[in-house]
């Protein structure tokens, strides 16, 4: 029993946690963008892929991976600002804005995916693992890079929640999220807040791409695969809820990891999506409240 815990269950749960942290980074971006702009960003997965490809391209030019972790997210900021200013904002105030923003971001995702195919080809790439080998953590052996992934992801998630819930900037973001007009009438430059939030969400997706590039393969449609899980996390946690994304991300990836031990892994995804269906049936708004709301 003890050996099962040490050599099977615990490593599987830690691997699930590494995936969960990565999914949360992507889901946080999605949920912040939805919570503030009321926009479901269908191109979010492609921004994640751009982060991974950005890391791949720059690492091929000889750049150190540790520099890339900081550099690639920074490069995502102007991309996010441009997307919000010149695409989202153009359709934001229209009568059917939920549909139009969904279609615009869906179209953008297709374009970005094709651009990645043109630039890098359809094949799969695998950047070198900057932290090869395994670490013995209280008798549990886990790949060192995944341990790093958990640590840096947790730091980023805590930093995001701290900024949103404990700083004046966060109060401005939550206020704009709850009531755009009232916040603007108090002097909040809502346009800047929206651009900043979209860019921040995209930056988190890019960071997740860089962090996961050495673990998962890098290919042009990688965003499409990963975003499904991120959307599930956001829906279960509650659209626009930061804590919801964090808790649902950990819960669902643990369900996926543990269920893979007892039944065929092909059933892991149906189980996760089944949880989402159950949540939608009994609590359509998700487990937690939207950012800025009581």
């Amino acid at each position, binding site marked *: 029993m003890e050996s099962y815990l040490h050599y099977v269950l615990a490593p599987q749960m830690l691997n699930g946690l590494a995936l969960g942290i990565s999914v949360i980074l992507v889901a946080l971006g999605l949920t912040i963008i939805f919570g503030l702009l009321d926009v479901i960003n269908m191109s979010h997965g492609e921004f994640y892929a751009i982060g991974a490809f950005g890391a791949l391209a720059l690492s091929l030019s000889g750049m150190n991976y540790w520099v890339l972790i900081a550099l690639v997210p920074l490069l995502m900021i102007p991309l996010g600002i441009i997307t919000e200013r010149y695409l989202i904002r153009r359709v934001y105030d229209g009568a059917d804005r939920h549909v139009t923003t969904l279609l615009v971001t869906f179209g953008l995702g297709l374009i970005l995916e094709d651009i990645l195919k043109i630039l890098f080809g359809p094949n799969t790439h695998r950047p070198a693992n900057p932290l090869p080998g395994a670490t013995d953590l209280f008798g549990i052996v886990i790949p060192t890079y995944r341990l790093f992934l958990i640590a840096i992801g947790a730091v980023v998630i805590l930093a995001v929640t701290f900024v949103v819930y404990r700083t*004046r900037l966060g*109060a*401005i973001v*939550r*206020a704009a999220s*709850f*009531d755009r*007009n*009232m*916040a*603007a*009438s*108090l*002097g*909040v*430059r*809502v*346009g800047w807040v929206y651009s900043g939030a979209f860019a921040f969400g995209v930056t988190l997706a890019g960071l997740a791409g860089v962090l996961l590039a050495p673990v998962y393969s890098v290919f042009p449609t990688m965003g499409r695969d990963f975003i499904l899980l991120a959307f599930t996390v956001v829906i279960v946690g509650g659209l626009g809820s930061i804590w919801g994304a964090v808790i649902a991300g950990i819960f669902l990836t643990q369900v996926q990891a543990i269920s893979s031990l007892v039944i065929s892994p092909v059933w892991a995804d149906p189980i996760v999506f089944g949880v989402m269906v159950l949540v939608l049936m009994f609590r359509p708004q998700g487990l937690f409240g939207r*950012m*800025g*709301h*009581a």
Partner: protein
Amino acid sequence: MLSIKDLHSHYGLSHVIQGISLEVAAGEILGVFGRNGVGKTTLLKNIAGWVKPSSGSIELNGQAIGGIEPDAINRAGLAIVPEDRRIFPGLTVQENLELGLLGLKGAKPASKLNPVLERFPRLAERAKQSATTLSGGEQQMLSLARIMVAEPRVVLIDEPSEGLAPMIVAEIFAIVREMRDAGCAVVLVEQNIHEALAVCDRFVLIERGAVVFAGAAEDDAARAALLEKLAV
């Protein structure tokens, strides 16, 4: 201070504001009265930038503010206390008040909150509480205190007494008077006509999106005519 000329505004095909013109001077309270649905709140939303006017002009101290973004209108010196208070429930009382600092030009020191917290001791006591834990009257106080932080030159107030106990209403109208005495131009939309007439300097009556009657609050004949028109 605030000058509106031939303002028109639509919601889709509905012509809600049909050529309203009015002026409010510094240190003056203008009461805006009328039955439900005549366009009073829409008028305030047009002035605050929440709804874009179809035509006409809105000027604040000679600066055109019609149709510009609400944050730019706020920086020009105009603040709004809307009908349903619109406090931010996910924020504490202190955070709600600190948002008011954004309307200040230049440095925004937290010490600017002190005079407001002294004026509203109940809010000071509850500064760290979530704004949702406040009573209706306290929420209205917060809504007023939040805009007072930035010392606006023009204040739009929509139905401040709605649903509140008479004692709280008296306190709220006392605050409105203080704003006027501090040199503020106040546009007050209110259904509680008798209470409002006691604080207003002038009033206008709106019917179907247009000003149909105006007068001075001290003019007994004008007051009587207003009350008769409203059948109060």
